[in-house]
């Protein structure tokens, strides 16, 4: 940009110099003696074309300026103002000078001409003419005398007389000619010249018509001289057809004076004739100079306005770029003046802003990285984390918190604890706990029980106040874990331990009791009378029977407490259901059984004997429930269901019995919870334990549209052979998410 600007400047200066030179030469060309007179036309063309070029340049600049104004380019108004100021400042004085120059021009040229001078020149010319006329009349008289003298002389004698005639009359050259102009004889002062000076055809014609000629001629050889030609009236000569011409010299002084007068007169007459043309030409040159000055000024105004406004425009664009976030904008420094200093300061400012922005960017990136790292860590935590600020507004949370609390945690981030608990009322115990520790600055840990959609939840919740500065409390960090299953596991483990020990302790004395009762009967039954024998038999039988019952009970305890020893294999659930059902249909024939088993049910990987125990317990419960009901029905359904891309085998055993109250339903899978009078209360606990060992889920629910309870089991299907390895690893997860 800067280089092209310099080129434009130098080109403009060169053209300016050329135009100025052309105008000077034009001005000089108006003088007659000027060497540029011959170039006048070319100069006029050049200056006209130069002016046209300037007008074109100005027009292009003006059009560009208008476009910039329309596009609201920064600096346009300033450019317009500067150009207007430049133009106004230059036009006014130039116009004033022009008008005064015109006036002076008119006056100056008019002052060259004066009536008195003109009269004097006319008079001097007349005087010269009179002086020459007098001389010419004398010479005519003298030549006529010479013609008379030669009238009696024949052509043959004339060469001998003519020299004497010329010498006597002081003529320069005397020539005797016939009427056609043919030379008869001649005598000349100039001996070098052989050919005499002939009069022109016009003079000859004049002589032929009987006249005579006297005139001031300017010949090549003689310069200014008086030519006199007269006819020779000759009586003796035949045809009377001769004429004589005499050339008389004009004295050098008269010659010089008359030439001077004639030249001055012609010059003055020429000038007076050219007066208006001269004025017009000078006005033309003056106008060209005026137009050139004006156009050059306007163009210069454009050029310098652009040059001065360019850094301001650059700065405006730079400022806009900074506003748009580009802090690396650097503007070329135009010059070493104040504007240059301003631009340099602007560049320094942008540089510092860019550095500060980069530093801030780095810090932000670092913070974002740390935030991402923190989120990744929090996301991987199984514990729920909630961070509240001092106004109890949730600022940060992790995915586990949402899962544990059963709320869409992202949608509530940014809301206050109070609003969150208004939306999700099951979180009220948590709110109470957090608020109860509001004023404490110590860490706290507390167990909270929530009742949400997934039922009763026990959370171990701990809170820590956090602060950026040491003095001010900025909020709380709440960390919590769902320990429901942990507590349930502990409870189950305690029950298992208790059952194992109880079975061991009880089973030990039962066998001696049974053996003792049988021995007592065997030994004393036949020794007693019939009556006593019957009593003994009845009593010992009761002992043995009760001991057996107790053994069964203890064995059941043992089964519950025994660690799982599963031997899994691919099996068809439908086949197992049919086998187990066959046992019960023989015992209870009044219950109507409806079998809806899906054909081509996928195989499951399970321990057959333990699953048989599951179906045995569930079907026994179902038949027991239907025992006192007339028109009882039992529906067994098996099907393959697919949820979120995961496939399960679902078995539904639905009876038409009295159902289970909601109070008992919550604890129905816990040991010793039963609705039957004869039940041990361990059947469903064992069912749940076996199903969970197979990564499945089981639950009971009262039928919605009819009486009775439905037991629902979901077991993961066996994965295909090619991804067995993967299925072994993911079995547990698949089973849990269903």
């Amino acid at each position, binding site marked *: 940009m800067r280089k092209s600007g310099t080129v434009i400047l130098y080109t403009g200066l060169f053209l300016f110099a050329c135009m100025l030179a052309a105008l000077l030469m034009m001005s000089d060309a108006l003088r007659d003696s000027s060497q540029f007179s011959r170039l006048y036309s070319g100069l006029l063309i050049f200056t006209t074309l130069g002016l046209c070029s300037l007008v074109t340049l100005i027009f292009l600049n003006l059009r560009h300026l208008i476009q910039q104004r329309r596009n609201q380019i920064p600096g346009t108004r300033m450019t317009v103002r500067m150009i207007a100021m430049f133009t106004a400042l230059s036009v006014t004085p130039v116009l004033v000078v022009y008008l005064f120059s015109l006036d002076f021009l008119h006056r100056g040229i008019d002052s060259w001409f004066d009536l008195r001078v003109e009269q004097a020149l006319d008079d001097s010319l007349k005087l010269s003419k009179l002086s020459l006329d007098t001389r010419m009349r004398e010479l005519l008289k003298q030549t006529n005398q010479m013609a008379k003298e030669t009238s009696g002389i024949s052509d043959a004698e004339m060469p001998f007389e003519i020299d004497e005639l010329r010498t006597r009359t002081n003529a320069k050259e005397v020539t005797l000619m016939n009427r056609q102009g043919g030379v008869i004889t001649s005598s000349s002062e100039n001996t070098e010249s052989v050919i005499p000076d002939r009069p022109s055809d016009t003079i000859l014609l004049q002589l032929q018509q009987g006249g005579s000629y006297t005139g001031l001629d300017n010949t090549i050889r003689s310069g200014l001289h008086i030519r006199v030609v007269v006819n020779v009236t000759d009586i003796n000569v035949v045809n009377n057809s001769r004429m004589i011409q005499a050339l008389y010299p004009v004295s050098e002084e008269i010659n010089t004076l008359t030439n001077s007068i*004639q030249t001055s007169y012609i010059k003055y007459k020429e000038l*007076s004739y050219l007066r208006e043309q001269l004025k017009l030409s000078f006005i033309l040159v003056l106008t060209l100079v005026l137009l050139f000055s004006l156009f050059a000024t306007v163009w210069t105004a454009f050029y310098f306005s652009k040059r001065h406004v360019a850094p301001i425009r650059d700065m405006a664009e730079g400022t806009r770029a900074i506003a748009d976030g580009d802090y690396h904008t650097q503007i070329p420094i135009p010059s070493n003046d104040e504007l240059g200093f301003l631009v340099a300061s602007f560049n320094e400012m942008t540089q510092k802003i860019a550095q500060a922005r980069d530093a801030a960017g780095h810090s932000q990136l670092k913070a974002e990285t740390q935030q991402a790292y923190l989120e990744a860590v929090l996301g991987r935590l199984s514990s729920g984390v909630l961070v509240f600020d001092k106004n109890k507004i949730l600022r940060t949370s992790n995915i586990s918190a949402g899962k544990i609390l059963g709320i869409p945690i992202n949608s509530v981030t940014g809301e206050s604890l109070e609003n969150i608990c208004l939306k999700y009322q099951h979180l009220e115990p948590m709110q109470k706990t957090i608020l109860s520790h509001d004023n404490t600055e110590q860490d706290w840990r507390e167990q909270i029980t929530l009742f949400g959609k997934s039922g009763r939840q026990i959370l171990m919740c701990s809170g820590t106040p956090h602060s950026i500065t040491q003095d001010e409390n900025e909020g709380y960090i709440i960390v919590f874990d769902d320990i429901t299953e942990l507590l349930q596991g502990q409870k189950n483990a305690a029950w298992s331990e208790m059952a194992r020990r109880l079975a061991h302790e009880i089973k030990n004395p039962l066998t001696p009791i049974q053996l003792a009762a049988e021995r007592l009967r065997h030994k004393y039954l036949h020794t007693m009378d019939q009556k006593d024998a019957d009593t003994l038999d009845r009593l010992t039988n009761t002992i043995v029977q009760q001991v057996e019952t107790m053994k069964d009970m203890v064995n059941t305890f043992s089964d519950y407490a025994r660690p799982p020893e599963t031997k899994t294999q691919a099996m068809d659930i439908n086949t197992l259901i049919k086998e187990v059902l066959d046992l019960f249909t023989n015992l209870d024939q009044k219950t109507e059984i409806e079998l809806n088993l899906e054909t081509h049910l996928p195989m499951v990987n399970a321990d057959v004997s333990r699953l048989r125990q599951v179906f045995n317990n569930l079907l026994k419960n179902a038949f027991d429930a239907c025992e006192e009901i007339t028109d009882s029905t039992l529906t067994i359904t098996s099907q393959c269901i697919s949820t979120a891309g995961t496939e399960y085998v679902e078995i539904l055993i639905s009876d038409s019995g009295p159902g289970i109250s909601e109070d008992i339903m919550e604890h129905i899978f816990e040991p010793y919870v039963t609705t039957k009078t004869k039940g041990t209360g361990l059947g469903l606990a064992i069912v749940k334990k076996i199903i969970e060992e197979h990564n499945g889920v089981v639950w009971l629910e009262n039928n919605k549209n009819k009486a009775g309870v439905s037991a629902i089991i979901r077991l993961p299907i066996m994965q295909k052979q090619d991804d067995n390895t993967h299925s072994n690893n993911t079995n547990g997860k698949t089973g849990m998410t269903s």
Partner: protein
Amino acid sequence: MLNCKKPETGTHIILSALVGLLLLPVSTHAELHHLQSKHGFIVESAELNLDGSEYTLNADIQFHFSKEALKALEHGIALQIDIEVQAKQNRKWLWDKKIRNKVFSQRLEYQPLSEQYLITDLNTGNKHHFRSFQYALEFMGSINDYPFLGLAALQQDKKYTALVRASLNTESLPTPLRLSAYVSSDWQLSSPWFKWTIKQ
């Protein structure tokens, strides 16, 4: 001695076009005036005669000067008359080829002291005085035996055309007068081209 007139003619055409455009209304008015007046030059007759091995020009030209030109002459301004002669080879498919171009220039001026008109042949430098303006014009219009073209310049099997015209040389006018001479018909004095076939 020949006058090379080409550049002057070119410049004159460009300048006339430029100034003519600027002063179109004035020019139009001047043209009307020209039509009304009867000034101008006419080539009455012209021929090339073979004189030995050279063709010489003989022509009869009539000069009718405008009032403005006559006024300028009376005020001592010399008028230069150019008689331009061309020989062209005729061509069927292309424009004619110029084989010779010659300009005979004469200067006409008035001498108030002797009240004579002086004609100077600018090619030879010869001067001729005339008391009568009419005689001066007759002399100037009578072109007799001006050597023009060598016989060797022509080929027997080709046809040639000769052209002649007379015009007032405005470039020889005083500089202040030229500006109006460029645009005024009073000064645009020129005859049309007079053409004839050169007999070989």
